[in-house]
C-alpha cells in the first residue's frame, strides 16, 4: 500500500498508538488519580479502536486492501432483506417506517444499487398510505403526520425518482401542513402540539426547499430561532440553552443555508467546534467529551462538507472580527429588514416578536442548486482518517454499519455511515459531481459511492431530477 491513501493518515495513525494518546495516560498513572466515568469509557473505546488499527498497520498490503474494502454485496443483502421483511422487535420503529424506507433506499442509492420497478412501485404505494389527507406523512399508515417522517418520505420518493413517485407528493397540502406546524416564534413543531426544536426546523425547510414551496411565510423567524440555539461552544443545540450537538448542528447549519441566512451564524466558532469533534479514533463524536459514533460521520462530517462551500463567508467573518449580531444586522441593510409582530403570551399579555426579514427567502429552491455549484474549498477535517473509522470500526462484514466496535448494526447507522463515507470521499472533488482523485478514496477505488447533495442528504443525481421536476411548478 506504498502509495495508497493510508500513508496520508499515518501521522494521525501513529498519533493514536504513540505520541498523541500516551501523555494523558502516563500523566494519570503518575498522579494516581481515579479516572472519571467519561475517561474510563473513552479509554475502553480507544483501546478497542487502536487494537483494530494495530492489526491494520501490521498486516501485509493485500490484507490491508481487503480490510479496507467496502463489502457492497453484503450491505446490499442486509438492506434488501430489511426492505422486504423486518422482525417482530422492529415494532419499536413502527412509527418510523418512512425513516426505515429512507435509511434503506438512500443507502442502496449511495451504493448505486437500483431497485426493481416492482419494489419501487410498492414503496410509492406504501408511502402514499402514510400520507395524511391534509398534508404531511405519518410514521405508518393512519398515523398523525409528523415532520421527521415527512422529510423521510419525501427524501425516499425523490430517491426513487420516478414521475409517479414525485407526482405522488401533494405539494399544496404539504405546504399547508408545514404552516400548521409553525409556531408563532417562527420555529416548527414536529407534529400538531408536538415538540419544537431544530430538527423540526430542518425537516420542514429541507422539504419546502426541495419541493419548491419555500417562501417568506415559511421561513420567517426560523433563522432567529436557530441563532438562539448556537451555544457558547460554537455548535448548535436542539433548543436554546441545550448542549451543542452534532445532529442539531447539521440541521441548524443546513437550515440557515437553505433560508439564505447562514452569515448570521458565528461560523468561525462553529467550524472550530465541529473540527474538534473528530478524535483519536478518527471518527466523530456528537458532543464534547462523548464517545465516537459512526453516525456522526455524516452529521459532523457533513457539516464540515457544507462548510467547504462557505469558506469565503467564514473568512469574511474572520477579517471583520469582532462583530456582534446587532452590528451584523445593521450591515445587512438593503436586503434585510427587521420587522416585528405582536403575539399573545400565555398569561394574556402581549409580547413583541422581532424577527429577521430576509427578502431573499423564497429563492429557496434555487439555493440548493446554487450551493452545490459553489466552489469546494477542500476539507477542514481528516477525510482519510474518517473513512478508516467507517470502514474498519463501523462496517459489519456480514453487511450493514454500526455505531462503534462492540455495538450491533442497524439501518440508521448504515445510512449515516455510508452518507459520511460519501462526503469524505468527495471532500477533495473540485465540483460536486466530479470523481475524486484516487488518493482521496481510502481502500480500493471501487469503494467510491455516489456523491450526495449535502443539504438534503440525497444522492446528487436524484436531487437534480427532483429539482428539475419541481422547478417548473409554482
Amino acid at each position, binding site marked *: 500500500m506504498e502509495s495508497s491513501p493510508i500513508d496520508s493518515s499515518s*501521522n*494521525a495513525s501513529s*498519533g493514536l498508538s504513540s505520541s*498523541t494518546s500516551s501523555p*494523558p495516560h502516563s*500523566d494519570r498513572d503518575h498522579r494516581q488519580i481515579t479516572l*472519571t*466515568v*467519561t475517561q474510563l469509557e473513552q479509554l475502553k473505546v480507544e483501546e478497542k479502536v487502536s487494537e483494530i488499527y494495530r492489526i491494520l498497520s501490521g498486516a501485509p498490503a493485500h490484507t490491508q486492501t481487503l480490510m479496507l474494502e467496502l463489502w457492497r454485496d453484503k450491505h446490499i443483502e442486509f438492506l434488501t432483506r*430489511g*426492505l422486504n*421483511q*423486518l*422482525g*417482530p422487535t*422492529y*415494532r*419499536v*420503529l*413502527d*412509527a418510523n*417506517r418512512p425513516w426505515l*424506507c429512507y435509511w*434503506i433506499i438512500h443507502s442502496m442509492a449511495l451504493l448505486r444499487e437500483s431497485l426493481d420497478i416492482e419494489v419501487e412501485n*410498492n414503496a410509492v*404505494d*406504501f408511502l402514499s*398510505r402514510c400520507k395524511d389527507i391534509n398534508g404531511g406523512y*405519518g*410514521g405508518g*399508515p*393512519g*398515523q*398523525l403526520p409528523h415532520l421527521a417522517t415527512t422529510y423521510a418520505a419525501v427524501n425516499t420518493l425523490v430517491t426513487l425518482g420516478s414521475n409517479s413517485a414525485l407526482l405522488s407528493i401533494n405539494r399544496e397540502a404539504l405546504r399547508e401542513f408545514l404552516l400548521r406546524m409553525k409556531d408563532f416564534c417562527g420555529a416548527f413543531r414536529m*407534529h400538531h*402540539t408536538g*415538540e419544537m426544536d431544530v430538527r423540526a426546523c430542518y425537516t420542514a425547510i429541507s422539504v419546502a426547499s426541495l419541493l419548491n414551496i419555500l417562501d417568506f411565510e415559511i421561513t420567517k423567524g426560523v433563522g432567529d430561532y436557530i441563532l438562539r440555539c448556537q*451555544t*457558547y*461552544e460554537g455548535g448548535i443545540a*436542539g*433548543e436554546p*440553552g*441545550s*448542549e451543542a450537538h452534532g445532529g442539531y448542528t447539521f440541521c441548524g447549519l443546513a437550515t440557515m443555508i437553505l433560508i439564505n441566512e447562514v452569515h448570521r451564524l458565528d461560523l468561525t466558532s462553529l467550524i472550530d467546534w465541529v*473540527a*474538534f469533534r473528530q478524535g*483519536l479514533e*478518527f471518527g466523530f463524536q456528537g*458532543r*464534547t*467529551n462523548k464517545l465516537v459514533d459512526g453516525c456522526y460521520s455524516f452529521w459532523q462530517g457533513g457539516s464540515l462538507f457544507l462548510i467547504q462551500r462557505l469558506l469565503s463567508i*467564514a473568512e469574511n467573518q*474572520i*477579517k471583520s*472580527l*469582532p462583530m*456582534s449580531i446587532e452590528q451584523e444586522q445593521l450591515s445587512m441593510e438593503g436586503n434585510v429588514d427587521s420587522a416585528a409582530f405582536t403575539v399573545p403570551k400565555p398569561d394574556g399579555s402581549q409580547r413583541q416578536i422581532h424577527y429577521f426579514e430576509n427578502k431573499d427567502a423564497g429563492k429557496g429552491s434555487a439555493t440548493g442548486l446554487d450551493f452545490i455549484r459553489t466552489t469546494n474549498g477542500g476539507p477542514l*477535517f*481528516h477525510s482519510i482518517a474518517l473513512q478508516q473509522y467507517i470502514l474498519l470500526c463501523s462496517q459489519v462484514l456480514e453487511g450493514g454499519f454500526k455505531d462503534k466496535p462492540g455495538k450491533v448494526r442497524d439501518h440508521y447507522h448504515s445510512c449515516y455511515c455510508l452518507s459520511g463515507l460519501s462526503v469524505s470521499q468527495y471532500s477533495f472533488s473540485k465540483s460536486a459531481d466530479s470523481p475524486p482523485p484516487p488518493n482521496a478514496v481510502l481502500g480500493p477505488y471501487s469503494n467510491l459511492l455516489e456523491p450526495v447533495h449535502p443539504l438534503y442528504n440525497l444522492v446528487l443525481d436524484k436531487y437534480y431530477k427532483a429539482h428539475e421536476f419541481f422547478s417548473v411548478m409554482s
Partner: protein
Amino acid sequence: MSSDEDEWVPFSRRPEWSDVKPVPQDDGPHPVVPIAYRADFRETMDYFRAVYLSGERSHRALNLTAEAISMNPGNYTVWYFRRLVLEAVDADLNDEMEYINCVASKNSKNYQIWHHKRWLAEKLGPEVAQKELEFTKRIFAIDAKNYHAWSHRQWVLDALGGWQNELDYCTELLEDDIFNNSAWNQRYFVITRSPLLGGLQSMRESEVSYAVEAILSNPENESPWRYLRGLYKGDPNLLICNNQISGVCLQVLKTKHNIIFPLSLLLELLCHGFQPSTEFVSAVEALRTSVPESSSTSSLANTICSVLEIVDPIRSNYWSWRRSHLPSQVC
C-alpha cells in the same frame, strides 16, 4: 411462547371491548419495510386505531393507550391521543405524572416521553418543579449526559423555577466527573440565565477561576477550555484583557504536554488583538524546535498554527486553513 404473551388477554376476548370493531392497518398488498408483528402488538394497535378513528375519549381508551405505549413508546400518535383523552376524562394529572415517570425510567431516550412530561408539568405548574428536578437527577445518576433529561431540566427551571441549588448541583456533578460536558453546559445555562445570580457579568470572575482550576487539574479536558472562551462570548476585548486567561495558556504550554487547547486559545486571543509578552513568544518558540520548516520571521499566530498542524494531525487541514486566513493584524 413467552410468559408475557400467555398472560396477555386478547382484546377480542375482553367483554368490555366486545362493542368495538378492530381496524386493521392499511399496509396495502405489498408493503415495504413490513414488520412481522406479534399477535398481541397487532391486535392492540387494531383496537387503538378503532378508538382513535372514532374519537372515543374514555377510561378504557386511556388504558388501551398505556398498553400500546408499553409495546412501542415511540408511537407519537398514541401519546397525542392519550393527551386528548386525559383532557376529556379530566384525569388526575398527578397519577399521570407517576405513570410517565415509570415509563421514562425504562425509556429515557425517547422524544415522546419527555414531551409528554413537559406537557404535564406545564399543566401542574410550579408546585411540581422540585419533583421534576429530582426526577432528572435520578436519570443523571444513571446517565449524566442524557440529552432529553437535560433539556427537560432546563425547561423546568425556565418555566417553573427551582433555581436555588442549581449551581451547587452543577458543581456536584463536575466533582463526580469533571469531563461531563453536559454539566458544564448546564453551568453556563445557570450563570447566564438564573434570576438569582445576576447574570454572566456578575458571575464571570468567579467562573473564570473555577474553569482555570479545572484546566490546571486536567489540561487535556476540552470542556473547561471551551467554557472559559464561552464566558467572553461576544466580548473579545475583555477576553484578551484577563491575565488569568492568558496566564493559564502560558502555564500549560510550559509543561509541553496537552498543548493543543492552550495553543488554540492563545491563537484566539491573538486574533482578537492580544499583545503577547516575550514569555509567550518563547513558550511557543520552545515548541517550535520540532517544527523546522516554519520560518523564523513568521508571526506568533502563524507559528502556533504551524505547530498545531504537526501536533494535532487529525486537524492539520483545519490548522492550515486557519493559518492562511489569519486576521490581517496578526499575519
